[in-house]
């Protein structure tokens, strides 16, 4: 592959013909290895045999237990040789062959001798080998030497001991933790690599001790860290300390921020990158903090090295998810990356642009992407499709061009995963953008006319059955559906029959024609298709007016199942595993949707997962799941339409029971959903409830609660408490909570719980219902138009003094958060050093009242902030309520 770059040697032809390992065969090499037992060792030949053994191992060849033992014993004989080259090979060979526990003893004495040898390099290598093959008991014997080695004058010996420490920490943490004084000393070493390895080990030893990590960072950020690698580690640890300590509330400064910002000017690229990434990853990072980091990343976008371009665009892509406005300056540089040779870079550039672009640039971007799509692999295309889906949800007015794009690529060649991603995107757009429904459904219809994937055809047919009958002209879809009955395999035919029946059930005018079509399916050659056709034909009354069908049957056939499919699947699997005489009871399947935030909880304090191409789940799906869950609980089924569900609020720290609460707001009710997880394998909790003290929330009166019957280990469950609130002004207040339950011991070996339990309780943290809980974040794409069309009828304007603030940006954030509204047109970003700023907010208030807010803020020399708040809404009470919230906040 790189022939042109190799000089043509005269002996080149020989090279091609002859390889030193040509015809190499395991048996022969093992035979050769017997030469290790010779009394007169030939070091050169021995080295060559080891080389062959290594070649075999590196080729994926394995040795049987006997072979490995034989080779190992033979190799140990080589310790007799004084040849250094051979000794080096012996060390490597022992590591590669990793002898079993009972064989290790053979070499320990030789290695321990080497570990105390005068030759430094023997010491270093012996340490590495010993640490790889050792177990706990041997380790205590050699611990003394290892501690000495950590502070050895020779940096190689020291590094060997330190890196061994890093590995041993996994298997023998209590021993390695005893070395922290020596490691601490090594951190101050003048040798760059020793410092790097020591810092890594010291941090691992102390990672659970926040104070110690903070001290470590404080001392090192002041001093000089020599190696760029160590500097990168330090930046990582520093940003961890920043994350845990938060912003200084008085000055608004972050500790150590100056240090990280200073690293942006470091001469090593890797340090600059690490610092830029640390800044972009800070929680609640401000525009002022982001600017210098984005600037260096922008420079790297035009680097000649692909690795640097990739790294820069990858980081910017991440920033764009949370701060699209901050990345906009880099758009021109990123557009030139669309044509980058490296497809990973090009895809990242595209998806970043899709996040940062504004409404006017969508069409231009789509044009560029169309050219790009033809020459990338499916996995990249999927990432692009997902980005386009998010873009369309962000700019609903642009649905036409985006939907066209999706339907075009749907027609082109592609594998199943790619096609599925496109279909999923179109389905989501149809659900969320009412205007896109008809065109979207037609695109899907066209697609199934020539679709090779049964799974997708059935998915689309099912979706058509739900959505098609509700459109203005349902009859136009019938042709596409019936074509499936004529042309497709049995699975798709059966599905098409069901879809036809749904049209017949929901659209009376189509019924007679559907009967004609269903009648033709009665003689299908597949059982399932025939059965379905017969069932639906009779249920819908195709045989005449005599048949009266029970409403519950129709509900069962055409309504939704009312049970989460995942739960049904688990229930059925359990039933099959443990079969009984009793028929399967559908009512025994729990209707509760599994708690969603569990995955986030598993990694506390860590960076959020940022896998390429994973997009955060849209808010709609979470809201849908909550709505389904609540309506499936009889006590709450009559509460009406769910207005808003908050994000989960944690009520416990890392303890035995993990509990968070989701606040569900209805018109005159709130429901608190407590998601509980039991993290103790030896316990089963029963009758779990939360007792809520609402004495600091006077307007709330408790109306219902739903206990959780069982809470086994590591299976999340929910308990609920509902409160009534007065209509009109939104009620706010603070709630304190106690978790009550009966705890039963579980035998871990059998998993069975004891019969008797003990009642117990557990104090949870307090939480509040605030004004923002009654506001949905709903943006408008053109604020001026929306403002003008809302009119000044219910406009309320007032002025407020916000007191001294760190900056205008902080004031804007505070008011936006207080109101819980969606900033529009990027006006939440305040240019640094500006003295005045206008921020536009939009939202939907409880009762489905649209609200628009214009915040005009000014800051004076003494950092006093004054604000003019103009509210327009569809209801004067709501305009007043917004002012009240600000006045009392």
């Amino acid at each position, binding site marked *: 592959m790189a022939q042109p*770059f190799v000089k043509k040697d005269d002996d080149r032809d020989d090279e091609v013909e002859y390889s030193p390992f040509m015809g190499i065969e395991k048996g022969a090499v093992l035979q050769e290895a017997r030469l290790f037992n010779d009394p007169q060792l030939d070091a050169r030949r021995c080295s060559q045999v080891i080389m062959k053994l290594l070649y075999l191992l590196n080729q994926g060849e394995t040795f049987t237990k006997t072979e490995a033992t034989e080779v190992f014993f033979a190799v140990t004989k080589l310790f007799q040789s004084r040849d250094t080259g051979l000794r080096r090979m012996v060390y490597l060979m022992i590591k590669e062959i990793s002898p079993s526990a009972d064989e290790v003893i053979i070499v320990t004495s030789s290695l321990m001798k080497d570990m105390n040898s005068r030759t430094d390099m*023997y010491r270093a290598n012996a340490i590495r080998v010993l640490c790889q093959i050792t177990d706990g008991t041997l380790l205590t014997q050699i611990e003394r030497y290892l501690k000495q080695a950590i502070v050895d004058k020779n940096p190689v010996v020291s590094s060997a001991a330190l890196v061994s420490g890093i590995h041993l920490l996994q298997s023998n943490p209590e021993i390695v933790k005893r070395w922290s004084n020596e490691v601490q000393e090594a951190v101050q070493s003048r040798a760059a690599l020793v410092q790097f390895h020591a810092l890594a080990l010291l941090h691992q030893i102390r990672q659970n001790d926040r104070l110690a990590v903070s001290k470590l960072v404080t001392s090192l950020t002041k001093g000089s860290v020599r190696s760029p690698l160590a500097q990168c580690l330090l930046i990582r640890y520093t940003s961890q300390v920043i994350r845990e300590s938060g912003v200084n509330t008085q000055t608004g400064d972050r500790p150590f921020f100056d240090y990280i910002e200073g690293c942006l000017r470091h001469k090593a690229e890797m340090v600059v990158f690490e610092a830029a990434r640390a800044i972009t990853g800070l929680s609640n990072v401000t525009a002022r903090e982001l600017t210098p980091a984005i600037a260096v990343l922008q420079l790297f976008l035009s680097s000649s090295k692909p*690795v640097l371009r990739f790294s820069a665009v990858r980081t910017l892509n991440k920033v764009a998810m949370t701060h699209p406005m901050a990345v906009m300056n880099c758009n021109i540089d990123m557009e030139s990356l669309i044509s980058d040779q490296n497809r990973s870079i090009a895809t990242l550039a595209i998806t970043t642009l899709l996040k940062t672009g504004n409404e006017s640039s969508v069409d231009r971007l789509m044009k560029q992407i169309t050219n790009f799509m033809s020459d990338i692999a499916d996995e990249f295309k999927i990432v692009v499709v997902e980005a386009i889906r998010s873009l369309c949800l962000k700019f609903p007015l642009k649905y036409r061009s985006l939907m066209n794009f999706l339907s075009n690529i749907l027609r082109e060649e592609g594998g199943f995963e790619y096609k599925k991603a496109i279909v999923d995107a179109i389905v989501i757009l149809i659900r969320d953008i009412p205007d896109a429904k008809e065109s979207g459904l037609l695109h899907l219809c066209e697609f199934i006319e020539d679709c090779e994937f049964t799974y997708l055809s059935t998915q689309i047919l099912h979706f058509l059955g739900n959505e098609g009958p509700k459109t203005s002209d349902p009859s136009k879809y019938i042709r596409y559906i019936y074509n499936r009955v004529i042309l497709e395999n049995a699975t798709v035919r059966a599905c098409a029959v069901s879809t036809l029946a749904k049209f017949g059930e929901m659209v009376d005018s189509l019924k007679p024609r559907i009967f004609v079509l269903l009648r033709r399916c009665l003689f299908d050659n597949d059982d399932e298709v025939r059965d379905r056709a017969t069932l639906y034909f009779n249920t819908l009354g195709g045989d005449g007016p005599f048949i009266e069908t029970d409403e519950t049957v129709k509900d069962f056939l055409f309504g939704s199942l009312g049970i989460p499919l995942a739960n049904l699947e688990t229930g059925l699997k359990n039933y099959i595993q443990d079969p009984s005489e009793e028929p399967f009871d559908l009512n025994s399947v729990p209707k509760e949707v599994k708690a969603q935030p569990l995955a986030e909880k598993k990694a506390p304090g860590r960076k959020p997962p940022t896998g390429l191409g994973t997009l955060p789940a849209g808010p709609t799906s979470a809201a849908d799941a909550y709505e389904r869950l609540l309506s499936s609980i009889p006590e709450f089924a009559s509460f009406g339409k769910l207005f808003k569900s908050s994000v989960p609020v944690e009520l416990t720290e890392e303890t035995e029971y993990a509990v968070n609460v989701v606040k569900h707001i209805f018109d005159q009710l709130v429901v608190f959903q407590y998601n509980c997880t039991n993290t103790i394998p030896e316990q089963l909790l029963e009758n779990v409830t939360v007792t809520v003290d609402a004495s600091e929330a006077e307007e709330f009166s408790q109306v219902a609660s739903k206990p959780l019957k069982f809470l086994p280990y590591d299976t999340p469950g929910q308990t609920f408490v509902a409160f009534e609130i007065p209509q009109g002004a939104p009620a706010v207040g603070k709630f304190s909570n106690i978790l009550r339950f009966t705890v039963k011991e579980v035998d871990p070996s059998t998993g069975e719980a004891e019969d008797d339990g003990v009642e117990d309780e557990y104090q949870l943290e307090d939480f509040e219902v605030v004004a923002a809980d009654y506001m949905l974040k709903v943006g408008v794409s053109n604020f001026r138009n929306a403002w003008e069309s809302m009119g000044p009828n219910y406009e309320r304007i007032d002025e407020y003094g916000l007191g001294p603030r760190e900056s205008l940006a902080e004031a804007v954030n505070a008011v936006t958060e207080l109101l819980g509204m969606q900033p529009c047109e990027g006006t939440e970003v305040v240019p640094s050093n500006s003295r005045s700023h206008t921020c536009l907010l939009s939202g939907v208030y409880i009762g489905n009242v649209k609200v628009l807010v214009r915040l005009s803020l000014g800051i004076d020399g003494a950092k006093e902030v004054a604000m003019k708040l103009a509210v327009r809404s569809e209801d004067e009470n709501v305009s007043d309520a917004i002012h009240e919230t600000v006045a009392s906040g």
Partner: protein
Amino acid sequence: MLLAVLIANSEGNILVERFNGVPAEERLHWRSFLVKLGADNLKGVKNEELLVASHKSVYIVYTVLGDVSIFVVGKDEYDELALAEAIFVITSALKDVCGKPPTERLFLDKYGKICLCLDEIVWKGLLENTDKERIKRLVRLKPPTEF
């Protein structure tokens, strides 16, 4: 963790593969994935020009040197930048041992030395030595010069 170092010849045959923390059943998959990645992208690439790819949270940096292609795979702290550092050390050590960008034959001739170099550079998934002069001495069991 530096998950893998893999060196292949121009036909995609493996010359060296060292995995760390990769389950045995996934190795074959990685091997064929990397070889295909090389076959797709390394044609006409200059010696030591680094290419990069990522799959979910795993990064791959790869290049070509003489007749051999070199791949390093990492995750977490071993992101594309750290891998670029690692592959730089590997290529310079290789050039040092072979005296030039190696032909396949030359590579195999120096196989033992190369294994020792890799052992000094990456040990059980951690980058250990980064200076080629030092590595050159270490494989001969000579202490580093700066000491």
